[in-house]
């Protein structure tokens, strides 16, 4: 009898209904594990509620220093803001080109093992490293300036775009590639006529999204020496010119908001266009 009822339950419902005991034990286990994790983490980070309460009071006080923003600094900050945008704008196409190479080299259905393994490893390595570390290394070698900033951002794009591209290529229906191969296409022709058209819309959409990410990152990198609005911001902070810093924050907000809007609109166009073709 129970056997029959199990057969009668649709499989997707059966898997959702564990037996009574399990239904109680599992959430309890998860909650317990979470509690232990939180307690350990709080201990590691020396979290203290007293300090939080104190910090909140001081934080409000500190925030007071930032107001009103120094509107007169706005005109001085527009130049650095443009530099931040240009850094991202130059770095993104470079990063896209690099990711294209890495993505093609890392796809299982295109690249031989001797090429694929190191390419995947480099992509993984890059993904694991925050851009800031790459920039610190480049600054240590090449000095401060826009050059290391652009290179750091371009390299920083490889991890995300390269991986997404390689994964997208691997998901291409094998029959599409085979049909081009059977008529005698070379590997390059397969890439040009079967792979690129399949992955182009999503790759472009990702690249546009990466531009948005790069704008944020270029603000961040600016603070450690790539120049631009991030540099102005951290300079104002260390000179204790908080009202000027607030202005820099507002300019940054406007930049990032604008970039998000533009990138959203462009992405939608690219993806819709891809569907129509």
């Amino acid at each position: 009898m129970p056997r029959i009822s199990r057969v009668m339950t649709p499989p997707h419902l059966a898997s959702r209904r564990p037996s009574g005991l399990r239904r109680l034990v599992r959430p309890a286990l998860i909650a317990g594990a979470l509690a232990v994790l939180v307690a350990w983490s709080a201990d590691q980070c020396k979290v203290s509620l007293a300090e939080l309460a104190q910090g909140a009071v001081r934080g409000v006080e500190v925030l007071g220093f930032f107001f009103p923003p120094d509107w007169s600094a706005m005109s001085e900050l527009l130049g650095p803001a443009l530099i931040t945008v240009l850094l991202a704008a130059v770095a993104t196409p470079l990063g896209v080109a690099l990711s294209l190479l890495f993505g093609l080299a890392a796809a299982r259905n295109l690249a031989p093992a001797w090429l694929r393994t190191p390419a995947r490893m480099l992509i993984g390595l890059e993904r694991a490293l925050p851009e800031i570390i790459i920039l610190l290394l480049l600054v240590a070698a090449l000095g401060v300036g826009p050059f290391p900033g652009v290179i750091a951002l371009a390299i920083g794009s490889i991890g995300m775009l390269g991986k997404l591209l390689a994964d997208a290529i691997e998901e291409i229906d094998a029959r599409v590639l085979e049909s081009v191969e059977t008529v005698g296409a070379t590997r390059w022709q397969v890439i040009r006529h079967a792979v690129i058209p399949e992955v182009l819309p999503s790759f472009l959409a990702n690249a546009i999204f990466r531009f948005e990410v790069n704008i944020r990152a270029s603000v961040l990198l600016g603070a450690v020496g790539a120049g631009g609005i991030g540099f102005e911001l951290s300079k104002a902070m260390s000179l204790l010119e908080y009202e000027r810093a607030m202005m820099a924050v507002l300019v940054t907000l406007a930049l990032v908001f604008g970039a998000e809007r533009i990138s959203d609109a462009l992405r939608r166009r690219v993806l819709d266009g891809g569907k129509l073709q």
Partner: protein
Amino acid sequence: MSTAAVATSASSLPYTPPSRLFRRRMGIFAALALFLAVAGAALKFEPWLLITDFHYLVRLAGEMLPPRIELLWTKPSLYSSVAETIAMAVLGTLAGASIAFGLALFAAGNTTPHPFVRTFVRFGFGAERATPNFVVLLVLLIAVGFGPFAGVLALTIGSIGMFGKLFADAIEQVDPAPIEAINTVGATRWQVIRYAILPQVLPSVVANGFYAFDVNLRAAIALGVYGGGGLGFELQLAMKVLRYQDVLALILLIVVLVTLMERVSDFLRRRILGSTAAL
């Protein structure tokens, strides 16, 4: 045989001028190239530096090799830095997710008390997402001082914008049928949330939580560089005193840590969501 057929048909095609699509694409490429040239000039971005200054990169690589792996056993404080970094990411993610979920209920069209509240909270999420994490950290460093606690708070605040938007979108996309069903039997607003909405969004909350943990782990390292404690701070210290062999060892440690934690969070996510639904 089929190859030959294709070849003949291709050669017998009459000449066609470049299609509009092709010309448009070439136009886009040309515009992009022109823009790159102008922007590069405006930035004083000099690509040839990569060749002329290449020996500096080689020299740095030389100074970094071999990595001082001994650090792993000669410097036990490294392990507390690793623990600190992981703990920062864990706390930042959990605290950020909890706060964001509460706010998301106000930001989702179907649970918000008033459309105006929805717009307001959503605007707050947007503003937070637009604020770089390190700006938040800079303010917090003044408020609570250097160290991992400031890092945790920065990550918490930094997670709210992203989580809040994702959660609110997930809540807005729930199937309204269960909500109506338990509304008709007289459920309170809280009961609707608990029994009709939460079960539907839980998988996406969990999946996003694990994703955010991966993001926050990297952010925890990056914030450390600005004074947030943990591995990033160690790395920045080693860099300041030009101990590049230590730097490389730390970088390797970071790569191993991030990769490992990604595997762990992937595994756990699959364990937890596997029984709920294939997301």
